[in-house]
């Protein structure tokens, strides 16, 4: 699958969980991705992010890197 399509799918998932507090959203997105995506899909998306992809939602990046949640303002700014 193309990285662009995977990014778009992941962004859709982020759109749903955005209603939740950022930390909870990131955890939920992470859980959703590992529950339903093949390892290859996750690898492709991770590589896409590592290459500096611009279109990936900040919450998705958060979820995949397992980093602590940013402040709400940061997410809003980065989620375009």
């Amino acid at each position, binding site marked *: *699958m193309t990285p662009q*399509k995977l990014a778009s*799918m992941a962004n859709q*998932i982020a759109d749903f969980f955005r*209603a939740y507090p950022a930390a909870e959203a990131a955890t939920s997105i992470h859980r959703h991705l*590992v*529950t*339903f995506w093949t390892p*290859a899909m996750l690898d492709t998306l991770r590589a896409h992010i590592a290459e500096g992809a611009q279109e990936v939602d900040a919450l998705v990046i958060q979820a995949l890197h397992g980093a602590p949640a940013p402040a709400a303002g940061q997410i809003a700014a980065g989620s375009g």
Partner: protein
Amino acid sequence: MNGAIAMGLIKEIDYGTPVPAGRRTITLSIDGEPVTVPAGTSVMAAAMMLGTKIPKLCATDSLEPFGSCRMCLVEIDGRRGTPASCTTPAEEAMMVRTQSPKLATLRRGVMELYISDHPLDCLTCSANGDCELQDMAGAVGLRDVRYGFAGANHSKSPKDETNPYFTFEASKCIVCSRCVRACEETQGTFALTIAGRGFDSKVSPGGMDFFGSECVSCGACVQACPTATLTEKSVIAMGQPEHSVVTTCAYCGVGCSFKAEMQGSTVVRMVPYKDGRANEGHSCVKGRFAWGYATHKDRITKPMIRAAITDPWREVSWAEAIAHAAAEFKRIQAKYGRDSVGGITSSRCTNEETYLIQKLVRAAFGNNNVDTCARVCHSPTGYGLMTTLGTSAGTQDFASVDESDVILVIGANPTDGHPVFASRMKKRLREGAKLIVADPRRIDLVHSPHVQAAYHLPLLPGTNVALINALAHVVVTEGLVAEDYVRERCEWDAFDGWARFIAEPRHAPEATAKLTGVDPKDVRAAARLYATGGAAAIYYGLGVTEHSQGSTTVMAMANLAMATGNIGRPGAGVNPLRGQNNVQGSCDMGSFPHEYPGYRHVSDTDTRALYEEIWGVALAGEPGRRIPNMLDDAVEGTFKGLYIQGEDIAQSDPDTQHVTAGLRAMECIVIQDLFLNETAKYAHVFLPGSSFLEKDGTFTNAERRIGRVRKVMPALGGLADWEVTMALSNALGYQMDYAHPSQIMAEIAATTPTFKGVSYARLDELGSIQWPCNDAAPDGTPMMHVDRFVRGKGRFMLTEFIPTQERTGPLFPLILTTGRILSQYNVGAQTRRTENSQWHEEDVLEIHAVDAESRGVVDGDLVRLESRSGAVALRARISERMQPGVVYTTFHHPKTGANVITTDYTDWATNCPEYKVTAVQVRKTNRVSDWQARFFDEDIALTRVALPPAAE
């Protein structure tokens, strides 16, 4: 005894009038014998409980008593005259005589009058051997007709043969009104009436012929007719059946129980089985009549292979086809890796067959690349209900609707898609339950005979979440939450967060009206009705799930139901109407790439260890590919081989040109099907499938009801589908060894907690079983979440409305939405090969008059329907059911190519395609589209079968 089943024609007991369910009983005496019956039972039914058959003609226990034929007269102590036993309720201590010289004379006299105006061609009559009139003439000892036959009579009445499946032979009619009442009471269509008065009284389908009338050909009238008047054409052609076998219909998710009435291994007719709990003796035109596809000349009964899809197919032996398929899969896995192949299970195949396919993929292929057609229909139901309630299934049984006070139908068209359940629902609506319909179209249910929706909320396609949120907003802000229920049953913190979220003004009906187009006053009124009108049930279909927010809508509905206390009690619930007969079962059986049977994740080490032990092989612990992922990866060259059982993704899946590009890119596609379907054009191995008449197994319907499918004829291709999968697995080097599907079910029960108590013996004993069936519920579970939710506490989810990315604009200003029609079934592979096509020969585009006029389109014009995915041409039908800006079509005919138009947008959680919202343009045209032109070429080029070499 070796367990042989006594063969014979199953005849259910006819009590003459419905038997009430009440607990209070009364005791009376009939012909000196005491009998205890539920209060409200008629004298006629009470007698039958003793085995005493009171003569009758106009009475049958599927219909309310009518009291017109005067055959069922009895004598009752203390009563004057001879009351009709059908209309007389039994009373405590009543003394009834069913036989006396006086009664015999009266009955004989009535029968004499009937027969004085009835043809005496009994020996050559189509009902010979199955005629209640003949039986009653015998029962009352009629020996002579003193009036002669020369007087005025109806013997020259015309025969109506316009319906493809049954005839109406008016000369045989005794005007008992059973057909008229069946059409009203059982089916709820009101197509039949008694026209004329007195001697001129006659049954009439509204003053026209049957085919042109409102008759929906459900068969209820034919079933109810006591004479030859309404008779199946198959019976007229073949004569009476000699034995019958109870089985389960292979069409929609209602899962009706039928008696296959047979002559040897030939089906004479399919008759709805009264003891079947899903349908209780009712049927629709598909299950009742449209079974001829099973022996259609298009059936492929010999295995075939070819090297390239442009080669002609070559007929080979089973052994060669299986060996070739296995060798190809092994070659591909050796070259491209273990994950380069997968399988697709079918919602039209049995639980046992589905289980074997996922087992083959996981154990023989060694990956989790297995998916099923539920991906493209109800996968959001699974996700949404699992998340909120804890299990991926509807909450109620169908009978629950009998206790509903308010019914919310959203994104479903039950009278077309689930007709037998719709009849049940309409019956309840006629009794006074209130109806709310949320649908872009004015579906039949909105206004039909004696049914009028309290509110029709004609929302714009793609705004379900906004609408349900608005309903919930009203519930929360107007203080209509069932707080005690929520406190006891649900996670309070999650509820509290949800309530604050949903109370925000942006969810108010007045605010969401901009998105949904629905009058806020109606939304508020509908919300109040749902929350305060008594037991409120939600029934929904693919109009909910097949959206980019399908899973969100399912959760929003669960929120609404939990907030109002409408889960876990009779008449309420959240209920998916499943499209295909075994969608529920295929999901239960581990068809999804991320979970084993019983919805247990592949990463769950205990479950995986269990299967590793039973299957004797190491299993992959990460999710495999979903169908859209398989196709995307095929286009990209990393997915190369696919085993497809009973699915036609080239017609049924969205964005056809993307699907076929994926199929063309694969090196080995193995199709197992009844017919050379659209997907088979891209296949390299064809394995003949077997219809539901040709194998044993089980289907699980939308109410989680597991019902037996019983073999009534040998598999035309020689092997049942489960045997084919077993052969392929064995050829792949993974041994499967089952002698009968009951052994597969035993393995399922041994490994799946919710199926623990299910076995063929128990199914024979109970008739059907609703899972969970285990130690806690040995007879199954009609209603779920009764005292607590399966997940413990119900969980409210935040359901923000996110508009689909599919937008209308100057190029594509209209929204296309799609659906089904009564007479056809999904891709039409079955129903198109029956006389059902007389009702629907082609798919048409329904369009509102305003949109048509602005395009210069008149009814019947050929129009070009175009989206960013592709274009097709089809005929336009101006329809008042549409709202301006929205067009609609069905997808039953491959040449229409409805899915050439649909896009690759999918549900965020499950990748269920967004079939229901596509931005399109409509223009007049005078030719088929380029895709269709290519379709017609390839319909020949890719389906050739080589002639066998001439014999020496």
